[in-house]
């Protein structure tokens, strides 16, 4: 798994990329708050925001395919709730407004994270006085997420190459063993990381 498949284009050199991470994060959050929490159906506001986001996306020189593909992922949960909303009287309008708002917010966040390296966002959080333990946790999660994901795939491949397709109960049990083993490896890795961090003078309270 490529470690940068999620923020592959975050280090380009467009005007949007060169904005400082902190103000960009604030502006992005403000935009999302405005869109999501504005009551009713403010179509003019939504149109203006859509135009602004489109202009920024063009300015950022990120391949449109990358942005669109990320925009089109709709979770089954969102769809389920939206269907429920349609079922009630007058639900169709509520549904359309919900969909428009959530799509715009999604686009704003995708644009923000696609044009900002995650480490810069973490630095902005730290400057905003988010507690250090939490920022460290986020940083380690981001750093090791792809390492552990690779490890998971490797273990699963190893298991599949050594065994026939098992019955379902067996399948569950062997997947659970993989997951349990993954935790033990993560736990031991955390110990080694602590030693390495301490050797480099890490101190966080």
């Amino acid at each position, binding site marked *: 798994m490529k470690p940068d498949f*999620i*923020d592959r284009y975050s280090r380009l050199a467009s005007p949007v990329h060169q904005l400082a991470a902190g103000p960009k994060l604030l502006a992005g*959050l403000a935009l*999302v708050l405005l*869109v*999501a*929490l504005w*009551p*009713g159906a403010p179509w003019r506001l939504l149109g203006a925001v859509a135009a602004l986001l489109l202009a920024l996306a063009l300015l950022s020189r990120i391949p449109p395919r990358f942005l669109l593909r990320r925009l089109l*992922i709709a*979770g089954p*949960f*969102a769809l389920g*709730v939206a269907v*429920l*909303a349609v*079922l*009630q*009287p007058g639900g169709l309008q509520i549904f359309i*407004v*919900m969909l*428009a*708002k*959530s799509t715009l*917010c*999604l686009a704003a*966040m995708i644009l923000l*994270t696609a044009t900002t390296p*995650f480490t810069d*966002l973490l630095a902005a959080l730290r400057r905003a006085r988010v*507690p250090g*333990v*939490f920022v*460290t*946790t*986020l940083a*380690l*999660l*981001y750093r*090791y*997420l792809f*390492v*552990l*994901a690779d490890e*998971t795939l490797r273990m699963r491949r190893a298991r599949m190459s050594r065994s026939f397709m098992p019955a379902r109960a067996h399948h*569950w*049990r062997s997947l*659970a063993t993989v*997951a*349990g083993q*993954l*935790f*033990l490896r*993560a*736990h031991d890795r*955390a*110990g080694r990381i*602590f030693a390495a961090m301490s050797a480099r003078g890490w101190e*966080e*309270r």
Partner: protein
Amino acid sequence: MHIPDGFLDAKTAVTTGVLAVAGLGLALRRVRQTLPPQQVPLLGLAAAFIFAAQMLNFPVGVGVSGHLLGGALAAALLGPAAAVIAMSAVLVLQCLLFSDGGVTALGANLFNMALAAPVAAWLVYRSLARVLDRRLAVALAAWLSTLTAALLCAGELAWSGRVGWQLVFPALGGVHALIGIGEALITALILGAIVAARPELLETSVATPRRDVLGLGLLLSLGLVLFIAPFACPWPDGLEKVAAQLGFEQHGSTLLKSPLADYAVPGLKWEGLGTIVSGVIGTLAVFALAWAVVRMMKVRGKM
């Protein structure tokens, strides 16, 4: 059950945001006081583990597969406060980088899945792990925590006036009562695998004193009172059902004209507000009483 942007209104977003920030703050303070420094990197690695384990798909049947949610597993492995932090990190990253869950709904998602789920799971697990097999204890904890998170989510959506409670409660509750069974099985199997290899890793969570979750437990009960109680109380039964459905229908049609009109149905709204206020006061009173009793017992124990 990651709620996207636009599914919650302002009052729900702000309320859940306040609850989530308070919970995360409490958990961080508790961790700073009790976690040895060499365990701090484990928070990040455990979060990465939950994230990676969520990628493993378990076959359920007829082309359907499920995956781990992880709240109960994190609570059983790390203890309540550390589990809250690890799960919060997972949700924040999912929101920022993977567009899974909205920014304005981050408070609600954090509260449901990173706070209520692990805390409820830990309370059950910690109580039962002494008397039952650990795997059975964690299975019950996982089922209950999944259902708790789903019902809170349903309450928040209904509170926002986007979907009627009579629709969203059975839908989310029913689906997650089933999903919870899968979650219970997976969690128990994974915990069993860890028990077999390194049983000593599981002692920290069980040995965590209950006072660690006093604040988190209070927040969980506040959430239940705020988001579920106002709907659970006017739950219709028998003959009242028809009338109540009529009332709900009216409520639904007012949403069409102005989704923002909070006071459109004054009777219902104020009744709900009254329920919430009395519920909050009741919760606080019970907690104050429990705290005082524990305090008194401790003083006596010292003497």
